[in-house]
């Protein structure tokens, strides 16, 4: 194989004021022709900077200290703008993280493609370019390409916008495509479709790719080799299968150990990385040594470059020989005790329907606005101390349910009762005790903590309002609450912006717990956090749950997390509950067709579930007005029946309930072969 790209000793800093902050430290790697290299690391590790450097692009404040980026043997870092303009978009394509801001909002998407085609001399006339653009749109799976050409970016969905960006990247048949977190901003199912598209394009066009992401699991599906970055250093490079089977660098081991696994046997504890990346306090030697369990005195002093471990496997660790292979083992966390059946449920929701755009107040009575029903006739129960996970893609109404339970968004019909007592629909009408009993934790701790209040003030307010302790003891109570979430008492004097993302989320959890709730509404509380931080919070939640008898409504789109945390699961689509049951039953056939598609979208590490052709065809939009909300997107739709008749609840006997026309046995049958499609021999 010949090398297409060679990055040699790339060292780069950003100027901030008068000082330089090192972002890349002697990064060296290569990409062969037709190869997909994955680059993984936590946010801020410099992986995107590497990606942009492959197009010869550096930010204004960047200073290249040394190094070369060779493309076809030509150094891109010394090539002038004119030379780069010839390569960019022509020989090297780029797919951005956020397609919404990456497309010019005032230009039709077709024109943006035609511009590239004509600039690079692929077509001379607009008409030819237009035809070629339509072909490209067809190639990336955009429906009705001719029509989409004339659209403005905002008229397309996020997934469609990303397809346009991919079409732009492949327009001139490049040798290399750089993908910078191309699916991060997208929904799980959309993400899966985009990955499938990329795998397919790669098989058809044979293009090399650099795939930059923070999601290691995702790389298992697409990358031939994987490079792991930490604080501007490339710490390990290996073929993907080797990397997952036998990671050599302690950081890689930690990353893999942090991943919650969907195929995991029940309740094994995660082994998260400890500590935080403190960019200001990096040692002169191994950057990971402050957080490394195996660090010895020499680690922080001497720098270690990549060293070959085996063919194609390199690692930058001084102790790799002594440490040997450490399969990412996990300690057993012990199974959770089963709850006694038949106890009265804590929270009981019956026939809940929620709509936006309900005219309220005087004006609303005279001019009722059009209602948009987002949750329809939902019923569920949560037992005392039980963790109920609500899963579904964005827009399925999961958060809306939590908002309705909290009283933020009064439903149009249905009842919510807590401990047998019916709750008022609006939070204003609830008693102080009822407000105390249900506490909400939001997705993004940056937004849910008042940035101008100290942690002590943030925690003190609920304490005072709900009369948790006498005035004099407030300080102690706050310290105790912080200790509960494993934070030091001194944190109460800090402002939120002095904390890391994970610490902030801990404070948000502490604020909820300090009120003494019986039910926590956890609304995607992990999705704004880095993988290793996520693992820490998951462990915390597990401990808290066993220490106190608090129930949780855990809303998430991440099935792996749900698997490790939930007792029972509900699957929501289009505001309708399609399946519910104990967690082990949900992850075992029979599946509802929608649950199955969700499960298929989850990246598997172990099974290396690589796809050859395009992924399962999604039949497009849901059929409007159909009695089954999933009709139109369902692969196994029974025809008219699904559109005309409301699907019945079918029960499996083990507590599982599926709302579908397809008989349970049939569902069992279709689920079995499709779920595990192991295609071996793709990795050379």
């Amino acid at each position, binding site marked *: 194989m010949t090398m297409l790209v060679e990055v040699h000793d790339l060292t780069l800093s950003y100027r901030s004021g008068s000082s330089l902050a090192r972002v890349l430290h002697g990064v060296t790697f290569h990409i062969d022709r037709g190869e997909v290299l994955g680059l993984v690391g936590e946010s801020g590790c410099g992986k995107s900077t590497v990606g942009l450097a492959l197009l010869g692009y550096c930010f204004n404040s960047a200073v290249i200290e040394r190094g070369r980026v060779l493309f076809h043997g030509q150094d891109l870092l010394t090539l002038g703008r004119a030379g780069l303009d010839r390569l960019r978009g022509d020989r090297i394509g780029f797919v951005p993280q956020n397609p919404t801001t990456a*497309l010019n909002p005032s230009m039709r998407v077709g024109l943006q493609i035609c511009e590239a085609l004509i600039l690079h001399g692929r077509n001379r006339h607009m008409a030819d370019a237009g035809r070629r653009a339509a072909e490209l749109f067809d190639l990336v799976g955009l429906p009705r390409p001719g029509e989409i050409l004339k659209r403005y970016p905002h008229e397309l969905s996020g997934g469609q916008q990303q397809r346009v960006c991919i079409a732009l990247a492949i327009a001139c048949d490049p040798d290399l495509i750089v993908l910078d977190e191309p699916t991060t901003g997208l929904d799980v199912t959309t993400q899966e479709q985009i990955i499938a598209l990329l795998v397919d394009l790669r098989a058809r066009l044979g293009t090399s790719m650099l795939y930059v992401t923070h999601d290691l699991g995702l790389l298992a599906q697409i990358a031939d080799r994987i490079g792991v970055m930490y604080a501007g250093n490339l710490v390990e490079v290996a073929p993907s299968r080797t990397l997952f089977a036998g990671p050599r660098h302690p950081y890689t081991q930690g990353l893999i150990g942090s991943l919650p696994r969907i195929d995991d046997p029940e309740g094994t504890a995660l082994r998260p990385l400890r500590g935080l990346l403190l960019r200001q306090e990096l040692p002169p030697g191994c950057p990971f040594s402050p957080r490394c369990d195996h660090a010895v005195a020499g680690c922080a002093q001497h720098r270690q470059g990549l060293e070959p471990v085996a063919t194609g496997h390199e690692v930058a660790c001084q102790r790799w020989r002594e440490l040997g292979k450490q399969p990412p083992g996990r300690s057993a966390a012990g199974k959770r005790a089963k709850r006694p059946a038949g106890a009265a449920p804590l929270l009981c929701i019956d026939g809940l329907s929620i709509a936006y755009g309900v005219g309220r107040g005087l004006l609303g009575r005279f001019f009722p606005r059009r209602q948009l029903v987002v949750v329809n006739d939902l019923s569920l129960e949560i037992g005392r101390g039980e963790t109920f996970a609500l899963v579904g893609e964005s827009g399925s109404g999961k958060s809306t349910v939590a908002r309705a339970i909290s009283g933020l968004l009064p439903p149009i019909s249905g009842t919510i009762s807590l401990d047998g007592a019916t709750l008022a629909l609006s939070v204003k009408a609830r008693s102080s005790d009822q407000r105390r009993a249900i506490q909400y934790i939001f997705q993004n701790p940056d937004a849910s903590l008042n940035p101008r209040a100290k942690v002590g003030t943030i925690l003190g307010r609920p304490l005072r309002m709900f009369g948790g302790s006498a005035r004099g003891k407030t300080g102690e109570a706050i310290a105790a609450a912080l200790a509960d979430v494993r934070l030091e008492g001194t944190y109460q004097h800090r402002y939120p912006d002095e904390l890391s993302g994970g610490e902030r989320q801990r404070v948000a959890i502490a604020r909820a717990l300090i009120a003494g709730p019986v039910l926590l509404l956890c609304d995607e509380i992990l999705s704004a956090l880095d993988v290793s931080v996520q693992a820490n919070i998951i462990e915390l939640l597990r401990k808290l749950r066993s220490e106190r008898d608090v129930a949780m409504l855990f809303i998430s789109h991440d099935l792996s997390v749900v698997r490790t945390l939930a007792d029972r699961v509900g699957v929501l689509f289009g505001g309708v509950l399609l399946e519910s049951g104990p967690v082990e039953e949900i992850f075992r056939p029979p599946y509802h067709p929608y649950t199955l598609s969700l499960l298929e979208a989850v990246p598997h590490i172990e099974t290396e579930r690589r796809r050859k052709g395009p992924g399962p065809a999604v039949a497009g939009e849901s059929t409007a007005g159909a009695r089954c909300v999933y009709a139109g997107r369902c692969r196994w739709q029974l025809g008219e029946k699904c559109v005309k008749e409301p699907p019945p609840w079918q029960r499996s006997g083990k507590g599982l309930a599926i709302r579908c026309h397809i008989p349970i046995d049939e569902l069992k049958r279709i689920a079995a072969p499709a779920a595990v499609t192991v295609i071996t021999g793709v990795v050379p």
Partner: protein
Amino acid sequence: MLITRLIAVRLVMALLTLLLVSLLIFSVLEILPGDVATRILGRDATPETIAMLRERMHLGDAALVRYGRWLVGAVQGDFGTSLVSGRSVSDILGQRVVNTVYLSIYAFLVYLPLATLPALLQAVRRDGPIDHALSVLTLVLLSVPDFLLGTLLLLTFVLAVPILPAMSTVDQTSGWLEYLRAMTLPALTLAIVMAVYAVRMLRDNLIEVLDADYIRMAELRGVPARRVVWRHALPNALVPTLNVTALNLAYLVGGVVVVEKVFSYPGFGSLLVDSLQLRDFPVIEAAVLIAATVYIAANFLADVGAIMFNPRLRSS
């Protein structure tokens, strides 16, 4: 469909605001507690003159009746008669408004290049010496009040280029050259004040657009630098530009009051100041209403422009 609806809604809102403004103007002057006639004539006025004025202004009628009468007249272009000269208010205003319109057009023509060129230069040469120098210059100019700026311009031109008159007096008999000479200094003053404000906003807007993700993406597709600026950046900077221009039109309405007074230009602004000094209520009401109308219209046009140029609203 959506656009026409949006514009219609904005239009209705603008008209409603205008109606409320008329009520505000009228009530501030004629309904507020305290005797109107005394407020006009002062405490030293004799009871006879006060009684005469009350009679003339129909102050005996209920406030709302007077407002209704005034509003109906105003809609038809009849603002009553001046308390001072006894002439019809519309007559007095007519020529003055025309003069001010000339002045504004002149000022805008000077303003456009004065605003756009430095901003473009600054944005393209960001953080360079030219950018810094222009930033300092605009900040200093921004801090010079318009009446002082006008006075300084007057001093400079009268001393250095004595072709321009110190007093910008014109009347119906003046030829267009006289008009042009008379208007040059006031127009230049207004143009500088507006341009300084616009340059600063435009520079920031242009830089914001140049920093946008899609501009970087265009560069990463190999679009040459020149085309990036002209084809990708500028069209997206257009809407904020429109906005600044509308804001400046709104400033102009207040700005002419001072600047016309500085140069004794017989426009609408100096008329307003004179009437305020003379407490000629009918003229004041009409003039303020006109000023507010221009302001509201300018904002309405800016809204419409933003709607028309926003691709998000254009085609859906």
